[in-house]
């Protein structure tokens, strides 16, 4: 467990053990916030930062913390990290902060963060823990962004709406209207749309995995056949 290669960590976080698609952790903010691409990206970045910082700190103090008290210590570390991020977002991305609302402080309760602290960071070196936090965060963000984009396109017919919340004034006209005169498909914006959308994304991921699992077998069979 102690020595895991970096490509392996990255693959785990982004695909094989993706927090949202495989571990199915942190679904509450995932489903609630992803009504638009930008909302998903905002929460994704905040979660990624939290994961990186908490993973690094937990890894750095892993030899000082006695196992009996490790969970309270992890919670304290995560809570302080989230508080810092929340206050920073309130200061610099105030409008986005207002939209994401309670889900920013609720990152504390995102199971994938304490999960990574317990399962990975407390047992690995600082650099590995840092990479793991980054990979897991990016994997989570990728799902948030994909689901957000899907729901925004289907639900409202736009993409990148309200980009200025994150990227400032220069992004004011990034909003794409993909379908003119679109009536909107309210279901996609409402909570059921989040569940159905996530279900479909997981289905696609499993389909890709199945295809990939089948291919090497076929390739191997093809190689042996002529001989």
């Amino acid at each position, binding site marked *: 467990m102690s020595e895991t290669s970096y490509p392996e960590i990255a693959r785990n976080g982004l695909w094989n053990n993706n927090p949202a698609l495989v571990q199915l952790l942190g679904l509450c903010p995932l489903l609630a916030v992803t009504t638009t691409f930008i909302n998903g990206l905002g929460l994704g970045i905040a979660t990624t930062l939290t994961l990186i910082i908490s993973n690094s700190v937990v890894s750095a103090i892993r030899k000082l913390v006695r196992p009996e008290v490790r969970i309270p210590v992890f919670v304290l570390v995560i809570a302080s990290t989230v508080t810092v991020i929340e206050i920073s977002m309130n200061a610099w991305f105030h409008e986005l902060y207002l939209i994401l609302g309670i889900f920013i402080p609720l990152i504390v309760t995102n199971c994938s963060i304490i999960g990574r602290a317990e399962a990975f960071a407390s047992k690995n070196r600082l650099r590995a823990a840092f990479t793991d936090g980054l990979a897991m965060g990016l994997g989570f963000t990728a799902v948030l962004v994909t689901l957000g984009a899907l729901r925004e396109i289907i639900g409202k017919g736009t993409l990148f709406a309200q980009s200025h919340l994150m990227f400032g004034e220069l992004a004011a006209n990034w909003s794409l209207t993909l379908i003119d005169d679109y*009536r*909107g*498909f*309210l*279901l996609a914006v*409402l909570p059921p749309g989040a569940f*159905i959308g996530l279900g479909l994304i997981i289905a696609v991921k499993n389909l890709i995995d199945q295809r990939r699992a089948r291919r090497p077998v076929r390739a191997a069979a093809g190689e042996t056949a002529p001989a």
Partner: protein
Amino acid sequence: MEFRTYSSPHLSGTNHVGRLMRGVMLAALPGLILAWWFFGWGVLVNLVLAVSTCIGAEAAMLRMRRRPVRVTLGDGSAALTGLLLALALPPFAPWWIPVLGALFAIVIAKQLYGGLGYNPFNPAMVGYVVLLISFPREMTLWAPPQELADARLSLVQTLAWSLLGTLPAGTGIDAISMATPLDTIKTQLGLGLTLTEIQAGPRFGSLGGYGWEWVNLGFLLGGGWLLYRGTIQWQIPAGFLGGLFVMALLFYAADSDTYASPLFHLFSGAAMLGAFFIATDPVSASTTPRGRLVYGIGIGILVYIIRAWGGYPDGVAFAVLLMNMAVPTIDYYTQPRVYGQGGE
């Protein structure tokens, strides 16, 4: 009493899914014809669009799932889903409303769960609810019943509206559409009118809304035939209508100015269609005798609650879906005693 026995074998006609589904479709005919008579061609346009989309989607999904297409399609369950969905839709819905609802019903609510027999929710009602919460404007384009309408659209005009969104010159959709009686009650009660004042209007007949009462009678007739044939058991319709009736009676007795009469509730909206055709779906309904009664009563009570205090004028679809969710629990607690096991 004559009781003749001829030579063996004594085989009766086999009962299979296709026969069942075709029987239900046949039973829906009186209601369908009355709906067409009162609400115009839009009913049939919706029917054709919904049924053909359901069959097409079912065929495509079966092919993708590598299941036998012809056998499964032949049982008529997809066509029945389309029929029930179409009966629930407003007659002036644009073409993509029945198509989208049918796609959702078959692809997501039925085939993704594993096809006929595996769907925990009534597919037609899932399709309907998706449309209702997504397109509130389009889903209110109900036609006024015949004789109340200023102008009626011919078949060609209805097709032009449904497919192209064009109306004959001089009419707007607001002129030819009208709120349903249940909707009228809900809005006018909000304006502070009493029920007596509201129901004095021409939209209301002797039992329910004018026109609506006939459509409901039609479905009651078809439902009676289904009961007689033994296609459906009495528990679900009786529970549904009984629950609705008792709830309506209680509140009507307490305050008849705010709460409509029990008979009005039984003959309005989708009450009869829901009680005999939708709630009795053999896949998603409860399967034990006592469970069916509980299931039906639950739907009846929920329908009343949604009609009286909910945000939507009618609640059959929501009530059915909510009780679908409760079915595993109901079935668990109402399993009949196995003969020779347990008891005294």
